[in-house]
């Protein structure tokens, strides 16, 4: 009879393991509980004992290979003729194989690679520590729903609680001791009808049921997916916009007369950002599989709030525009976004995104990255603030420029250098030239 050895699950969050070393070779005799192989997971490296005695008849996964939990790794033949042998010998006997246990296969099957199991537990695990009590897997309920504290494990094992049925009320959806107690208290005694969950109707006077709009659902998907995908980190610089503010004050009437629109801070920041992105293309990059795509152009996404939610129209080739061009482009896409007149092509292909919660009063933000970008910059409210200038306290127009960035792609040093570049540009450039002055 043959025993199948599978990749054991060494923790709720461990999904795969790497075979470091086989401690036995094909043909070797193995005793039960004798170390058989070493594995490495993202949590631990450990030796795995053999669940059965016999001869190692096949190694199906070589050293160095990483496979998912439940994958068949090897087989051990105990030399006895099991019920399955009859099936092998008889071949055509239609009902012969039905007596074989799920953990065994006829020795005749050794030559061909048996189908791998799906890790649902029907295959006997090679096992870990002998004292470990099997605990069911919790349902995916939140980022921390897979954390099981010692007391939760103990109670679940003692009472045979299926954790998939317990809702975690702890931080991040963690199942707490109290949740198990509440679950046990709510469990009906055996042999009675299952209790129906009573859903109270909405209180029409004080609650309103509003269907979630399509756009809201899409935003939810995108935001959640981004947080799941990126390794988000955050940096911020405090920028002196005094020169920009003075110029803006001086030019805004003429600009309005000529362009028919207000001269905001956005195009100034966009201009400085585009220049810095060409200088630091990693910030203007996309992680695509094993490759990093560095864009040598800037398609600038601008987050625009409108009644139903948020949309990010894109200014193509923003790096080729001067201040006035950017001001026009931003005004154009923002007004068309609010009027829902954007074409689908205009909301794709951003290489970097700027969001602008400043007009709503926010002074610093931690935005979520617009995938597949590497970073998103937030322009918050420009305020007059007391600052130290040349050892004197002065009143200056200041703004916090904050950036969420993907630590998979860049590091803090680069993010900071990028932001320092934007800051330096905004503080030192003479934008008057761009305005034709």
């Amino acid at each position, binding site marked *: 009879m043959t025993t199948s050895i599978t990749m054991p699950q060494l923790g709720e969050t461990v999904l795969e393991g790497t075979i470091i070393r086989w401690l036995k070779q094909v043909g070797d005799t193995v005793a039960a509980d004798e170390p058989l192989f070493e594995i490495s997971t993202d949590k631990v490296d450990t030796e795995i004992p053999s669940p059965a005695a016999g001869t190692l008849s096949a190694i199906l996964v070589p050293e160095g290979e990483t496979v998912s939990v439940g994958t068949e790794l090897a087989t051990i033949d105990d030399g006895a003729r099991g019920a399955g042998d009859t099936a092998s010998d008889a071949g055509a006997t239609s009902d012969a194989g039905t007596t074989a246990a799920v953990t065994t296969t006829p020795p005749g099957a050794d030559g061909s690679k048996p189908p791998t199991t799906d890790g649902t537990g029907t295959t006997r695990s090679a096992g870990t520590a002998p004292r470990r009590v099997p605990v069911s897997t919790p349902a995916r309920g939140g980022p921390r729903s897979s954390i099981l*504290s*010692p*007391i*939760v*494990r*103990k109670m679940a094992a003692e009472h045979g609680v299926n954790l998939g049925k317990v809702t975690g009320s*702890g*931080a991040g959806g*963690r199942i*707490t*001791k109290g949740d198990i107690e509440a679950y046990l208290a709510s469990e009906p005694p055996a042999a009675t009808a299952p209790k129906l969950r009573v859903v109270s109707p909405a209180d029409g006077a004080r609650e309103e049921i509003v269907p979630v709009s399509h756009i809201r659902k899409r935003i939810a998907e995108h935001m959640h997916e981004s947080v799941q995908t990126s390794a988000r980190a955050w940096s911020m610089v405090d920028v002196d916009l005094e020169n920009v503010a003075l110029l803006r004050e001086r030019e805004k009437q003429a600009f309005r007369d000529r362009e028919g629109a207000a001269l905001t801070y956005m195009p100034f920041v966009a201009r400085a950002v585009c220049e810095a992105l060409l200088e630091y293309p990693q910030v203007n990059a996309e992680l695509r599989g094993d490759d990093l795509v560095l864009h040598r152009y800037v398609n600038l996404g601008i987050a625009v709030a409108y009644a139903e939610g948020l949309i990010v129209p894109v200014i193509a080739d923003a790096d080729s525009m001067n201040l006035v061009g950017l001001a026009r482009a931003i005004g154009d896409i923002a007004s068309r976004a609010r009027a829902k007149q954007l074409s689908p092509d205009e909301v794709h292909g951003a290489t970097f995104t700027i969001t602008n919660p400043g007009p709503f009063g926010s002074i610093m933000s931690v935005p979520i990255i617009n995938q597949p970008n590497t970073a998103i910059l937030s322009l918050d409210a420009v305020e007059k603030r007391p600052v130290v200038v040349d050892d004197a306290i002065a009143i200056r127009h200041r703004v916090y420029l904050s950036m969420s960035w993907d630590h998979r792609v860049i590091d803090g040093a680069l993010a900071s250098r990028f932001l320092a570049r934007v800051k330096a540009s905004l503080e030192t450039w003479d934008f008057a030239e761009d305005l034709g002055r």
Partner: protein
Amino acid sequence: MAKAAVDAGAAGHGAEPRGKRTPQGEATYLVAIAEGLWEEMERDPSVYCLGEDIGVYGGAFKVTEGFIERFGSERIMDTPICEETIMGMSVGSAMAGMRPVAEVQYADFIANGFDELINVAGKYHYRTGVPLPMVVRGPSGGGVRASNFHSQNPEPWFAHSPGFKVMCPAFPSDAKGLLKSAIRDDNPCIFFEHKWIYRRIKEAVPDDPDFLVPIGKAKVRREGTDCTIISYGAMVHLALEAAEDLAADGISAEVVDLRTVTPLDAETVMTSVAKTSRALIVYESHRFLGIGAEVAAQIAEDAFEHLDAPVMRLAPPNVPVPFSPPLEDAFLPQVPDIAAAARSLVGW
């Protein structure tokens, strides 16, 4: 004899400390300590006190006020300003059959007598098989704006080194009962009196001259179900106040007062943690290798299967106790800090 003075309700020099109780019969922590000391000196003529200014002056904090008139200068002995001498004399006289009770004016100064304590007192019984009954008393702890030479918590030094029993009571009755137990104990005992508690906390204290609090027994000061706050000394009072605040938010915190830090009453700690599954240790000795570090380690080792959240600690950082009042307040755990830590523990 002092009895007459007590009967007359007198206080001050020559008077038994019980005469200093409040009209309602409550004793402050300081008076309770004086009572315990006085009773043991009356009970056993081999008990004597030595220290700086404990005689004529009555002690820097007036714990031994009136003692010299009652017991004389041979049993209430003023010493030079030299802790090494005080400890050496204590060790020597204990070897000769006396039961010395040495006072260090501030617990911080015990460091001057460190060698006599660590290398001699703590190891004498082990080396010779002969017990060494001595007690060292000292006012410890911060919160009284006394800066870093007068505010430390040296209990981990002696808890770490073998051979000592270390007590840090939080309440007057415990202080009295533990001091009496320490004086009757045949081993070197380090008795830290928290100076912040001295005149702040008072309660009815037992009169029985044989009232003793067992060394090495913690006490559950407040019952609770959601988390256990383990503490000792002044921090017990802050923890109890925090527990009251938490109760207003529906969080039921149990407060365990260790009373003795060595030997540690692990049984009471583990029983409580097994009940609440969450442990917060609040201690005034420095966070790194402080008393709470050991308590946390023991919980992790022995109550792991009962835990529903990581063991948490709240303690001052490993820097000297600041003199500046705002800095000292920031340095020491405060009631809102304890409540916030307990909330995050319960919300983990």
